[in-house]
């Protein structure tokens, strides 16, 4: 009896495994383009990938999203990829120094700004950046190294020393990437977080409120994009980058709340 059950389970797993393998391949081997992109680019790059696939039949774009620092670490460790889109030049520089991307092959392709997000009911009554230093505010940020955190630190560094101290004292968690920050604020677990304006997508627009950071205090986040020097699909990588920089690509990015490239 037990033998029969075991055999049955083996067969079930085997069939499921084969089926999954087949559906993954679709019979023919498509050309695969692997794109590593910053978390904040999640929605925009999904749409870009779809549009790119529609224009290039037989091409499949595989997207890997994480904090840029995590992606940079993976790339520096030798993970195979074709394109890297980082949320700041520093993480791009790290991959260049690791020898995976050629100096000068990177292009700034889009810009972004920072905003405070609070849960829709704004439990801590935040109305300005200064309020984030009030005692008892449960503040969450991305962890050090993640670009949005670096930009946040730049903003905070320009504030009074007293504010800085109280601001960081309110920090209750450092998240892996910017989307974890916005998600936890949307869940109502934190009183406030700092994310990109583009992170307030339609998905969470009802669950959060944005408290704008005035231009005078805000920073402009610049996103660089580059092909890997040992890309398995160098031509596809080039044409994907061209597509991102094209009018159509830039329109998609702008629809998802990104600004034009700071290069012009």
């Amino acid at each position, binding site marked *: 009896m037990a033998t029969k059950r075991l055999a049955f389970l083996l067969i079930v797993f085997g069939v499921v495994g084969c089926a999954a393998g087949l559906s993954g391949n679709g019979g023919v081997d498509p050309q695969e383009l692997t794109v590593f992109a910053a978390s904040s680019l999640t929605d925009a790059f999904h749409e870009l990938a779809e549009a790119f696939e529609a224009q290039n039949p037989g091409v499949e774009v595989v997207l890997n999203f994480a904090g840029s620092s995590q992606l940079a670490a993976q790339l520096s460790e030798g993970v195979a990829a074709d394109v890297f889109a980082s949320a700041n030049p520093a993480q791009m520089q790290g991959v260049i120094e690791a020898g995976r991307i050629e100096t000068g092959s990177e292009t700034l392709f889009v810009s972004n700004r920072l905003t405070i997000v609070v849960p829709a009911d704004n439990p801590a009554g935040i109305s300005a950046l200064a309020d984030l230093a009030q005692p008892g505010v*449960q503040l969450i940020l991305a962890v050090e190294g993640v670009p949005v955190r670096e930009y946040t630190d730049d903003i905070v560094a320009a504030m009074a020393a007293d504010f800085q101290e109280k601001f960081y004292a309110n920090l*209750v*968690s450092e*998240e892996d990437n910017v989307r974890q920050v916005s998600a936890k604020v949307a869940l*109502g677990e934190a009183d406030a977080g700092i994310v990109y304006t583009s992170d307030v997508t339609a998905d969470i627009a009802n669950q959060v409120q944005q408290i704008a950071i005035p231009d005078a205090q805000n920073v402009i986040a610049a996103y660089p994009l580059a092909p890997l020097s040992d890309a398995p699909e160098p031509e596809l990588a080039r044409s994907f980058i061209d597509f991102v920089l094209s009018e159509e690509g830039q329109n998609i990015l702008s629809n998802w709340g990104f600004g034009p490239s700071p290069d012009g």
Partner: protein
Amino acid sequence: MVEPMTSRKLKTRLPARTLVAESWQERVRGLLVAILALAMALFLAVPFVALIWRALTLEGQMPAAELSIFSAVMLSLGSTAVTVVLIVLLGTPLAYFVARYQFPFKRLLTIIIEIPIVMPPVVAGLALLSAFGRRGLIGMTLARFDITITFTLAAVILAQLFVSSPFYIRAAQSRFESLPSEYEDAAAVDGANRWVIFWRVMFPQSRQALLAGLILSWARALGEFGATILFAGNLQGRTQTMPLLVYGALERDLRVTFITALILLGLAVLAFTVTRWLAGVEDDEADTPTYL
């Protein structure tokens, strides 16, 4: 170390297999089995060796991040210590009730106790958030009294308690169940109350099994990652336990990652050795938990 234990456990031993007079088909079959076994054994052993090798050959000086390792070690040891105490305090009575009493929905309860063992930790984190988060079933009420659990040390401990206590409870329950109730009956006839029976009769006969289950729980609590990062967040010195540091430092400082990983591995091996040793000490008492 293992040999005397197994020989004591096996009442009858199979005669040694003879290697003579095997047909070539049998030899091919034997070879095939050996190759498969070797492949699996290597697969299990190589990552272990590679981790140690990588950690020992890392270049560069130990950076200032020593502090993050130190606070993660302290946080891990401190939180798991509290978890272990809570497991004994709350888990033992539950195991006792399930083992000794019949009540409605007992079967359901035993299933609920064991579910966290097979539950993906990240799902456990989500479940805890649904219960104790600020908008959670219980958390909502707590929030009214200005009690927040998410992103605190309490959340770290709750996450550990949730995922690790079933190992202890299961071990305790099966040990209690295996004790013949005649002793208790005899003690009851002599006028002992239930409390005395537990302390004087059941507990002394269960110590080893309880300890083995507890160490297993501790090891699981020490390695807890998914539920912790979701429910307790990640902040150095507050909620960043060793597994979270291993993951978090990966992109910042490989040395910190590997050193912390080695410490965790060492503690896990220690826990395992102690449980094996306990299981082997007294055969008549500690039935090795089935999942060891």
